[in-house]
């Protein structure tokens, strides 16, 4: 793993919030124990996305290493979300490969990609509004369930077991993100910040190897951002790998282990935050469009 930045917030703060630090145990007891920290888990190779004549992403390559928090940044329109969408199967890449643990993801249906272990949240929250918070999380957990129509109709023992553990795990996940007391409310009635947390819980519920967060701090005030950073770190410490797209430089610099910078669809830098901070190319990319820092 690349040299870690000293966390701004320590574990005590989390405990004060009542965050359960061993949540991974409850959420997915059967999940693989992370063994080879630092080895490339996701490999993005020469990824290119074209829309008509427009090249939104141009030969971008980077790795996401096991157990790290990788930041993906860049000015508006740099191709961050495009890259994200191409990785998760929303867009078909024009060329290039995305591999998870050495297996090719390109061309798989989106739900398969999720089941392989790549989960995401959405920049503009997309919860299932007419479902309760708990049900939203259980939809995520369903990605690991085996029974389907037959099992449900006949109430087979496997189905019953899955339903029961789903509620336990769902509640544990909601507890982990700190909104368990709101489990029974429809997600569209939840406060904004809770909705964002619920999205993270729902994505974690699919038991991902890599959790991709698309601007999770959008619309947060500084205090909420601090809490979010702590949460992201806890997630990582529990053995998940995190890919973070973020606008807020302070948050990115504070929480990530490594940063990939995109500009006009091309990768212009890939280094630890300290180096990125002083990289003249990155600075000019951001200063060239000063509005971005305001966003």
């Amino acid at each position: 793993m690349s040299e870690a930045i000293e966390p701004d917030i320590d574990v005590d703060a989390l405990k004060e919030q009542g965050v359960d630090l061993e949540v991974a145990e409850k959420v997915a007891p059967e999940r693989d124990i992370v063994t080879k920290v630092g080895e490339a888990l996701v490999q993005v190779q020469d990824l290119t996305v074209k829309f008509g004549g427009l090249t939104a992403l141009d030969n971008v390559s980077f790795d996401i290493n096991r157990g790290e928090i990788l930041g993906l940044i860049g000015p508006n329109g740099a191709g961050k979300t495009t890259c994200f969408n191409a990785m998760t199967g929303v867009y078909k890449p024009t060329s290039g490969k995305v591999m998870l643990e050495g297996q090719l993801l390109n061309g798989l249906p989106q739900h398969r990609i999720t089941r392989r272990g790549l989960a995401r949240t959405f920049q503009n929250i997309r919860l299932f509004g007419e479902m309760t918070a708990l049900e939203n999380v259980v939809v995520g957990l369903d990605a690991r369930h085996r029974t389907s129509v037959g099992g449900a109709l006949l109430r087979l023992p496997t189905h019953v077991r899955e339903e029961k553990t789903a509620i336990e795990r769902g509640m544990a996940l909601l507890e982990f993100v700190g909104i368990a007391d709101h489990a029974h409310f429809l997600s569209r009635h939840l406060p904004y910040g809770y909705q964002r947390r619920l999205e993270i819980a729902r994505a974690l519920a699919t038991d991902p190897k890599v959790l991709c967060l698309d601007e999770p701090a959008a619309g947060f005030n500084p205090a909420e951002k601090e809490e979010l950073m702590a949460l992201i770190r806890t997630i990582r410490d529990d053995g998940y790998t995190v890919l973070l797209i973020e606008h807020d430089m302070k948050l990115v610099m504070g929480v990530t282990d490594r940063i990939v910078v995109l500009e006009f669809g091309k990768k212009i830098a890939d280094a630890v935050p300290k180096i990125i901070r002083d990289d003249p190319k990155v600075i000019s990319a951001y200063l060239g469009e000063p509005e971005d820092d305001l966003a």
Partner: protein
Amino acid sequence: MSTTDGPTLIPDDSSAQEIADREAKMRRRKGWFPGLSDKWNALPRQTQWLFLIIVVVIAYLLPILNPPLITTEPGNNWQIALAQMSVYALIAVGLNVVVGYAGLLDLGYVAFFALGSYTAAMFTSPDSPYVHIPYLWTLPLAMAVAMFFGVVLGVPTLRLRGDYLAIVTLGFGEIVRILATIIPAMKGQVGFQNVGHPPGTDSAGQTIFQNSNGTPWYWLTLTIIIVVLLAAGNLERSRVGRAWIAIREDEDAAEIMGVPTFKYKVWAFAIGASVGGLSGALFAGQVGFVNNQKFDIATSILFVAAVVMGGTGNKVGAILGGALVAYIPLRFTAIAEFKYLIFGAALVIIMIFRPGGLLPARQSLLAYGRLAYNKLRGTNGDIPASGKVVLQSGKGADK
């Protein structure tokens, strides 16, 4: 691209009570009898069961009670009216799976109903030159036939956006009617007489299931409805129901959360089709005659109106809606002629003013979620800000 609602901006410090109030308010705005489902959910399990048993007993007694004012007589025979209402209720329950749960608009549902009717007719009627099988066998056969066509029609269209399904099913509904006219084997307007019925004679040696006697048909259909309801309930409170609702709410997000959306859309469509086929076979048996005149698109729209009136997504509401759609023209014979106008307008009015319909209940999508929720509701006021919940892992699953 999407114009769906963004998140509602509610400050984070709003208490649980405030959210609960907001939810209640939203529900009041949506339907006619909003408090009903809240009150129902608050009842203890035993009371609910007791109440259900009473309702079911009354339902079975309806043909004998023949309650004044409610009865459709003298205009229409009450027992036959009940039999027709029960068939419509079953149709609505089936269509509700497609429209209400998965959010797929099937405007050609009458086609599956027709397939079921023709299956029953062509395998039992003496007018049919083909092999004859006992009537009760045609019920599963009708389900299978309708399901098969549901899959055949669903697979190409369900990959596309939902709107295409509406127009393709609309076309399909029309095609089945036209084919019934131009395929000689389906006998057009001449149709099939003396469609079969379940076996059995009473003590006097009379056939029990006569076309002129609605009561046994009503009891049979009612029993089938109860079985279908239990099955639908099992599906609703499982991965399947959650997948359907997730697809209805946000299909792309559902796919990304690992829901195989296409597969579950085909399931919804096929299950809906099979119930449509089943109700068609029951209808054919009760009426005893099948020809091409009964399966026009207008009837299909009545089915949709039944689901929407009852409350989209609510299976109990669907029963109510289905029964009402059949009942209103039979009870108020003066307006029977205008039923398509009335129910067409009803669709618009409900969608604009009361999108929840009569019973805007929300699905419960977790088989064992009740206890977990009730614990939360019971302790609304004094949950520590930490979000630590009294519910211990392991206990939440107790039933």
